């Protein structure tokens, strides 16, 4: 072979090896990098936000639902006339023009302008044909009944990790309601259009679970209306109503006033967010007598016909004088009369017969001093101190509900045991949980304790029916019905003493007495037209009771 041929041959071989090595470099050494680059060009990863679960009342109406809203964003690099765009957007969105201009002046491809924009506003912006503006669909919480049940539901707010439930049901059941985010992979062509072969490969997204409550929407609405009217009529600082089915522990309604709007919770004082029915401690006053008397009868230290030997006048304990609420005294009152007259001296007698150890034991069984376990975020309880830490005066005032702090839900739950053959149930708001795959998880009723026997419960019921029919609140009682109940007028402790002019007026009861459909506690905070429970809380109670007896089609029996 000539030299030229040989040279050409070697040159071709050299080129061959050169190309082969280059191919080896790109196809083997750089294979992973190029594959990743290719994937980033034609794969789109979309984060899928799960739909938050709804909260429904017992009739399956969505008390808390999700509403479509939009995040308005802009691409400043596509906007030619930034001033005109800022003018248009700020006037449609009702936002400060300076902040919109600030966003548009940023050197970015994407800037958020405003979130939570409704569909009508979005359409207005679209009609304005503003360049460089887009919309991202979002979901926000929506309350069709307005701010009804705000304390019960709580609200959803944003923190570093995304949206989160606070207070009430949103807080307690946040993990159930939240669901789980996922990722969708979509392959697109060079022009950004999706390709059929591997579309919407949705991975991992699980929508939140729905909560179905035991709350009856009609009962809740009625309670809210009556409470609001009552607070205004009696010119009180506020009020609360809790209604429970004593046989199951189902909460039928829970209202507190004043309240707040969950949709715009940031505009209200933070102090309003917590549900006072489960988070506020107060001295219950005479409503507490029901449990103490029940303890006395159950332990047989007193009977309904037992006569009170010390009820003829006020008594002195530890240097302090204990009087009745109206300074009237009934010598030789029976225990039935003691409850009817709400006689503090009679209650001190019952307490003395029980002894502090036995009394505290009964109160523990009634759930006093511990949380009830209700499924709402924010429940508190004040522990009952040990028997050795009760001075004689404290033990005496305990018997008529002063010198002890309870939450309204504790009191309602304890009292409801009398309406349920002596069995105390765990209160709960959620009756069932529905999963996205159509499964239902039922929350069954739970018996917590049996503080008193069924016989004692029956006896106490009759005593409480007598108290309603012949006591100071008898004028407000609806005719024809046997209702068991007890008034309460508790003075408010301020700086070491009790304010004589400020009270927490309350009424607790259940109806119909023979087969209770509901137990209810009404609290009026610092009424000014009258300080007494019989003249403020009791009328509200009976107004609501009348409505409920009609609603439940319960015929009169008297």
């Amino acid at each position: 072979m000539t030299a030229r041929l040989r040279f050409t041959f070697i040159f071709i071989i050299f080129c061959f090896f050169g190309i082969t090595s280059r191919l080896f470099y790109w196809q083997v050494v750089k294979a992973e990098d190029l594959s990743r680059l290719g994937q980033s060009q034609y794969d789109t990863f979309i984060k899928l936000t799960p739909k938050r679960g709804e909260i429904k009342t017992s009739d399956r109406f969505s008390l808390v639902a999700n509403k479509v809203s939009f995040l308005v964003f802009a691409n400043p690099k596509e906007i030619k006339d930034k001033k005109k765009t800022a003018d248009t957007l700020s006037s449609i969105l009702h936002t400060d023009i300076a902040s919109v201009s600030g966003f548009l002046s940023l050197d970015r491809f994407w800037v958020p302008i405003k979130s939570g924009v409704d569909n009508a506003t979005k359409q207005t912006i679209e009609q304005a044909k503003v360049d460089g503006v887009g919309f991202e669909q979002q979901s926000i919480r929506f309350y069709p009944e307005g701010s009804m049940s705000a304390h019960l539901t709580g609200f959803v707010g944003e923190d570093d990790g995304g949206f989160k439930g606070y207070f009430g049901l949103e807080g307690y059941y946040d993990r159930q309601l939240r669901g789980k985010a996922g990722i969708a992979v979509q392959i697109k062509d060079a022009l950004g259009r999706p390709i059929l072969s591997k579309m919407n490969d949705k991975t991992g997204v699980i929508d939140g679970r729905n909560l179905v409550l035991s709350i009856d929407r009609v009962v809740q609405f009625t309670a809210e209306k009556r409470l609001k009217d009552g607070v205004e009529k009696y010119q009180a600082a506020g009020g609360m109503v809790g209604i429970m089915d004593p046989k199951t522990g189902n909460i039928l309604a829970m209202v507190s006033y004043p309240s707040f709007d969950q949709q715009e919770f940031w505009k209200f004082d933070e102090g309003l967010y917590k549900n006072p029915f489960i988070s506020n401690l107060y001295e219950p006053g005479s409503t507490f007598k029901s449990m103490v008397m029940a303890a006395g009868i159950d332990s047989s230290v007193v009977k309904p016909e037992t006569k009170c030997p010390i009820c003829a006048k006020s008594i002195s304990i530890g240097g302090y004088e204990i009087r009745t609420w109206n300074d009237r005294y009934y010598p030789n009152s029976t225990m039935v009369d003691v409850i009817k007259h709400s006689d503090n001296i009679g209650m001190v007698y019952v307490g003395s017969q029980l002894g502090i150890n036995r009394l505290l034991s009964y109160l523990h069984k009634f759930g006093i001093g511990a949380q009830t376990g209700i499924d709402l975020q924010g429940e508190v309880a004040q522990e009952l101190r040990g028997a050795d830490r009760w001075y004689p005066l404290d033990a005496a005032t305990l018997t008529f509900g002063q010198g002890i702090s309870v939450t309204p839900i504790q009191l309602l739950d304890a009292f409801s045991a009398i309406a349920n053959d002596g069995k105390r149930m765990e209160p709960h708001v959620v009756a069932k949980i529905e999963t996205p795959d159509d499964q239902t998880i039922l929350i069954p009723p739970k018996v917590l304790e049996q503080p008193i026997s069924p016989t004692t419960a029956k006896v106490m019921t009759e005593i409480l029916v007598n108290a309603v029919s012949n006591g100071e609140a008898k004028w407000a009682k609806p005719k024809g019905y046997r209702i068991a109940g007890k008034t309460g007028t508790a003075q408010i402790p301020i700086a070491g003493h009790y304010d004589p002019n400020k009270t927490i007026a309350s009424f607790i009861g259940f109806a119909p007495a023979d087969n209770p459909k509901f137990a209810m506690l009404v609290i009026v905070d610092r009424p000014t037209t009258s300080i007494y429970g019989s003249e403020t809380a009791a009328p509200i109670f009976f107004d609501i009771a009348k409505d409920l007896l009609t609603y439940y089609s319960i015929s009169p029996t008297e």
Partner: protein
Amino acid sequence: MRKKSTVFMAIVIASVVVFSIGQVAVANSLSTTGITLSKIEKEINAYSLENSLLKEKLLVKESLQYIASEAATIGFAEVKSQIIIGSSLPIAIKP
């Protein structure tokens, strides 16, 4: 023998041509499915949005707050008094 190999070659070449044309045709028709898919997705999203907006309106109309305010507007009033019918006397009284 030579004729057979010529026929065989012709068949192979014809198959290659036919399948190539077929592949081009199928690939061509598939290439625009992305556009159709995009249109379908847009329609689904539009209907989904419309459903959500209608559901919101429905919930508001079904709410007790709305019903109570509408009832007051058209003249419904709260019943202030109730008539209670007591138990009736027995028809025959035992002497």
